[in-house]
C-alpha cells in the first residue's frame, strides 16, 4: 500500500515538438486517450460498475428497500429472503441490503474525499515546489518526506486515534496520509516540464508565472496526478474501512462497511454469510476502482 510514486513513463507526450498552441495539443492527447479506452472492454466494464456503485449510493433513499436504522429484535440475523429482506438482516434486525446501500455513501465519501483533498492540496504544493526556487522546494519536499516516512495505515491510525476517531477526523488523517505522495507526483511532473524549451519561449514572450502554469504546466501535470489519484482511491477505501473496523471511523448506528464488519464479527457463528457481505462490498468497490485506474493509466501511457 505504500508504493513509491513512480510517474508513469511517457505520460508527458513525446510529441512535444509539435507546432501549434499548447491548448490544441492537449486536447489531441486526451482524444487519443479516449480512443484507446474505447477498445479496452475490461476497463469499460469495470468503469460501468464503478458508476453503478456511485449512482446506487447517491440514490440510496430511492433504491433501498427498508430504513437502514430500523431495528427489529424479532428479526435478528435472518437469512436471505426472510420476509422481503433480500440479503437478510444484521445483529439488530436491520435490513442488510439497505445498510449496505447507505453504507456505500459513507464508505465512498471516506474513500474519495481524502483523495480529493490530497490531490488539491498536494498537487498545489507540488506545483509550487516544482516551480518555486530551491529554498521553497526544499522546505516543501522535505516536510513531505517526513510524512512519507510513515507506513500509511500507521499514520492514519495514529492521527485518527490521537484526535479521538470519528468521520471528520478520519478524513483529515487520511488526507494527511495521501498528500505527500500527491505532492511528489505533482512536483516531479512540474520539474520535468519546467525546463522545456517552450516554457522558456512562453516566458520570453512575457507570460506571467500563473499564466504559464495554467496553460502549459497544468495540462501536463494533471495527467500523472490523475493517474496516481485514481490508484489511490481503492487504497483509501481500504484504509477508511480499516479505520472504521478499529472503531476510529464513524460511530454506530451509522452504516459503514468497515464498522459493519466489526459489529457483525460477533455473530460469526450464527450468520457467517451475513458477516461476509460488507467485506464483499469493500472488495468489489476497491477492485473496480483499481482496475479502472489501471486501464486509464494504460491508455494514457503513450508507449503502451
Amino acid at each position, binding site marked *: 500500500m*505504500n508504493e513509491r510514486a513512480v510517474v508513469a513513463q511517457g505520460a508527458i507526450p513525446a510529441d512535444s515538438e509539435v507546432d501549434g498552441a499548447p491548448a490544441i495539443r492537449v486536447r489531441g492527447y486526451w482524444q487519443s486517450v479516449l480512443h484507446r479506452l474505447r477498445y479496452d472492454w475490461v476497463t469499460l466494464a469495470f468503469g460501468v460498475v464503478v458508476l453503478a456503485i456511485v449512482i446506487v449510493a447517491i440514490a440510496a433513499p430511492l433504491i433501498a428497500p427498508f430504513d437502514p436504522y430500523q431495528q427489529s429484535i424479532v428479526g435478528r440475523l435472518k437469512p436471505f429472503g426472510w420476509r422481503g429482506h433480500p440479503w437478510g438482516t444484521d445483529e439488530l434486525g436491520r435490513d442488510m441490503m439497505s445498510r449496505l446501500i447507505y453504507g456505500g455513501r459513507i464508505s465512498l465519501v471516506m474513500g474519495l474525499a481524502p483523495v480529493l483533498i490530497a490531490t488539491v492540496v498536494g498537487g498545489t504544493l507540488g506545483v509550487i515546489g516544482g516551480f518555486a526556487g530551491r529554498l521553497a522546494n526544499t522546505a516543501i519536499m522535505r516536510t513531505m518526506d517526513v510524512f512519507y516516512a510513515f507506513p500509511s495505515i500507521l499514520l492514519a491510525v495514529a492521527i485518527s486515534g490521537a484526535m479521538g476517531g470519528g468521520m471528520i477526523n478520519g478524513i483529515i488523517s487520511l488526507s494527511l496520509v495521501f498528500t505527500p505522495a500527491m505532492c511528489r507526483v505533482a512536483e516531479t511532473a512540474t520539474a520535468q516540464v519546467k525546463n522545456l524549451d517552450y516554457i522558456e519561449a512562453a516566458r520570453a514572450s512575457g507570460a506571467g508565472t500563473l499564466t504559464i502554469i495554467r496553460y502549459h504546466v497544468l495540462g501536463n501535470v494533471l495527467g500523472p496526478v490523475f493517474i496516481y489519484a485514481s490508484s489511490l482511491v481503492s487504497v483509501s477505501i481500504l484504509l477508511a474501512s480499516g479505520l472504521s473496523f478499529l472503531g476510529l471511523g464513524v460511530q454506530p448506528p451509522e452504516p459503514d462497511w468497515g464498522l459493519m464488519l466489526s459489529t457483525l464479527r460477533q455473530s460469526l457463528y450464527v450468520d457467517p454469510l451475513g458477516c461476509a457481505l460488507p467485506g464483499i462490498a469493500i472488495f468489489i468497490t476497491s477492485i473496480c476502482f483499481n482496475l479502472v485506474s489501471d486501464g486509464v493509466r494504460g491508455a494514457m501511457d503513450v508507449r503502451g
Partner: protein
Amino acid sequence: MLGYVIRRVLFAIPIALGVSVVCFSLVYLAPGDPLQTVLPPDATAETIAIVKHAYGFDRPIPVQYAIWLWHVLHGDFGRSIASQRAVTLEVFGALGNTAMLALFAAPLSFMVGYGMGALAGCFPGQATDRIVTGAAVIGVSLPNYWLGLVLVIIFAVEYMVLPASGMGQSGSAAFTLWHWSDAQFLVLPVITLAMIPIGIIARTTRAAVAEVRSQDFVTTLRAMGLGEGAVIRHVLKNASPQVLAVMGLQFGYLMGGSILVETVFTWPGSGFLLFKAIINRDIPVLQGTILALSLIFVATNLVVDLLQAVLDPRIRRA
C-alpha cells in the same frame, strides 16, 4: 559510492527528527489538556507536579519538544498510563512479536510475489499473465482483515485445524518456534499479512520484467545468439532494482502496518499494542510505538536505497 552512502545516511537524520516532531505533536492533537493525557486518572497532586517538571509542560512548546527528545534519546519514553510500566518495555516486547510475523511473511511474500510476477512477465498477455495479474489485483483489493476473519471461520471454527487467536499455547513469553503446537499459531496471521505484499510485489515484478523484456538490449542479446535461459537471467537482473525497492518497502509495511491483522488474531505485537493504546487513550504508549515503528520504516528505506545503489550504478551518480 562512499559519497552517496554518506549523503543518503545524513539525509535520513532530519527525516528521523521530523518523524519525532510528528510523534511529539500527537499529544497536542488529542482533545483535552496535554498534561492529563500523560497522567493516570488518579494521580496525586505530587505526581502531577513531578511530571509537569520533568516534561516541562509549563514551558513553551519548542522547549517541551527538546525535553521530550532528550528523554527519548536516553531511552525514556515515559510510563504507560494503563499499566504504569516503562513504555520501552512494552514497545520492545511487542516489536519482537511483530518481527516474528514479519520474518515469516516477508520471505513468503517475496518468493510467491516474485515468482508470480516473473511468470506473468515472461508471458505478457497470455492466460498465465491474466491469471497472475488477476490474483495480484485481488490481493491488493481485499481488505486483509476480512480475509483473516474468513480464514478463521474456515480453519479454526469449521475444520478446527488451526487456532483462532493468540500467540502460542502458553503465551508469547513461552513461544517456542520449533514446536508445532506453538508454531501453528503463526500460520493464519502470516498468510493474511502476506496477502497484500504478494499482490504488490507480483504486479511490480510483472511490470518490471515485461518492460525490461521489451527493451532493445534484449533483442541484441538474442541476436548475439544467447539462449532463452541466459536472456531471462539478464532480464531478471535488470528488473531487480525496482523489485527490490518495492520489497524493502513491503517489509517496512509488514512491520509497521500489521495493526489490523494483529487485532483480528489477537497477536500481541506492536500493532495490537497500538490498538489498545488508542482504546485506553494511553498517549505515551501511542507515541512510543509510532516512533519506534516509523524509525524502523525510515531505516528500512535507507537500507533499500543503499542496496539499490549497489545494484544499479546509474543511481549512484544521481
